[in-house]
C-alpha cells in the first residue's frame, strides 16, 4: 500500500512537472529556453514511465528527447528572428484558433482516456528484461511494417530537408563566404 501511494505521488509530481514545463514553452521569449522546457517536459514523461515500472520505455524516452529537442533548439535559433528573446517576441500566435484547437485536443484526450475499456490493470508486471524482449518481439512482429514505413518517411524527409537547405551551386560561382 505504501509503495502504491509513493508511486501515485511521484506519478502526479512528474505529471505536473511535464505540464508546467509545457506551459513554460509558451511563456518564455527565448527560443533556447522554449526548446529545453519542451525537453524537460518530455523528460518528466519519461520519468512517469519509470514510476510505472516501464523501464525500457522510460529510459528510451529520456534518451531520445535529449537529442531531438537539442537539435530542435538549434533549428529554432537558426530560423527565428529573435532567438535570444531579448526583443520580447510573443511565442503565441493565432490565439483564438490555438485555444479552439487546444480545447478540441483536450476533449479528444479525455475521451480516449475515459471511453475505451482498458481492462483490468496488470497485477504481475513483467521484469524489465522481459518487457524489453516483449517490445522487441512487438516491433519485429505485427508492428514492423508501421515502424519501417515511419522510419523510411522520416529518412526521406531528412534527405529532402537537407536538399532544400543546400543552396544551388552555379557554375563558376564559389560559396566560401
Amino acid at each position: 500500500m505504501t509503495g502504491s501511494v509513493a508511486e501515485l505521488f511521484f506519478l502526479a509530481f512528474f505529471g505536473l512537472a511535464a505540464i508546467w514545463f509545457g506551459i513554460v514553452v509558451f511563456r518564455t521569449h527565448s527560443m533556447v529556453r522554449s526548446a529545453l522546457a519542451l525537453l524537460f517536459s518530455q523528460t518528466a514523461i519519461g520519468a512517469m514511465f519509470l514510476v510505472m515500472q516501464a523501464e525500457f520505455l522510460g529510459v528510451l524516452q529520456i534518451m531520445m528527447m535529449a537529442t531531438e529537442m537539442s537539435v530542435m533548439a538549434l533549428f529554432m535559433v537558426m530560423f527565428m528572428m529573435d532567438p535570444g528573446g531579448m526583443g520580447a517576441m510573443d511565442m503565441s500566435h493565432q490565439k483564438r484558433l490555438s485555444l479552439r484547437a487546444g480545447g478540441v485536443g483536450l476533449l479528444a484526450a479525455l475521451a480516449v482516456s475515459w471511453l475505451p475499456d482498458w481492462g483490468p490493470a496488470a497485477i504481475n508486471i513483467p521484469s524489465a528484461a522481459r518487457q524489453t524482449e516483449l517490445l522487441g518481439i512487438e516491433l519485429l512482429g505485427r508492428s514492423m511494417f508501421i515502424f519501417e514505413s515511419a522510419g523510411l518517411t522520416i529518412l526521406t524527409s531528412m534527405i529532402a530537408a537537407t536538399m532544400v537547405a543546400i543552396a544551388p551551386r552555379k557554375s563558376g560561382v564559389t560559396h566560401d563566404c
Partner: protein
Amino acid sequence: MNIVIILLTLAMGVYFIAIVEGWAVHGRISLSRPALSALALFGRESLLVRTPDRLFFEAGPILLLVVGLLAMAVIPLAPGLIITDLATGALFLNAALAYVLVALIMAGWGPNGGYAMIGGWRFLGQFIAYAMLIVMPITAVAMRAESLSTTVIVTSQAQLWNVFYQPIGFVLFVLAAMALAWLPPLDLPNAPGDLAGGFEAEYTGVRLAVLRLARMVIILAMAGAIVTFYLGGWLGPWLPGWLWSIIKMLIVTTAMLTTGRLVPRVREANLLAAGWKLGIPLALANIFLVGVIALVVDI
C-alpha cells in the same frame, strides 16, 4: 555501502585524472597540483557576466556533474559492486550521456558570450558524428551479451573480451568517448586555440571548479564504459575483481588523456566528415559482423 565505496573510488579516480592531465599538459607529475588548483579556484571570485541567461548559466555545470554521476551508477566494479544494476543499464548509460549535450548547450548559451555560444553549438553540431558511434557499438555489444545489463555484458566476455571479438566497435567507441568528453584532439567545444576556452570561457571560481570536476567524472565514466563493454570489466586472473576494474579504468584513462595530445586538433569539418562518411558505415558493418559471428561461432 556500495554507494560509499563507488563514490570513494570515483573521488580517487577524479584526482588521478587531474594528476595525469597535469602531467600531459605541463610535462611534470605533481601530486599536489590538483588540490592547489581546486583551492585556488574556490578562492577566486566567481564572476557573473553581463545579461546572462542566469538559469542556464548556473544549471549547466551542475547538470553536467549529475549526468556524470548517473552514468557511473551503472558501471560495475565487481559482481554486486554497482550502484544500480538496471536491466537496461547500457541504454541508461546512453541516456545519461545524451544530457552531456544538453548541459553543454546550457553552459554555452547561458553566459551570453560569443566564444561560449559557438562552443556549445559546435558540440551540438558534431553530435551525430560521435553519438551514433556510441550507440551503434553498444548495440553490437548488447547483441553478443543478449542483454542490456552491464553486469551481463561483462560476464558475456568470459571467454573472449569484446576488444578482440569486435575490434572495429572498440576503436569507434573509444574515439567517440574522447569526442564526448571533449578530449584532445577532439576538444572542439572548448578548443583553447581557436575558441579561447569555448563554453568554459566565461566561467570562473567555484562555477569553473564544478565544470572541471564534472568533466573529470565524465572522463572516468567513459573509461568505465570502455572497460565494461570491451575490456572484460572485472574479469582477470589472480587479483580481486574490483582491483582489475580500477587498474583497467586507470590505464584507459591515462591512454585517453595522453595519446590525443600527440596529434593536432581535428578540424570540425573533418570530424563531421569522418563521423558521417566513415564512422557510421563502419559501425553498421560492425553490427553486421558481430551478428554473423554470434550466429556462427559459440563464444
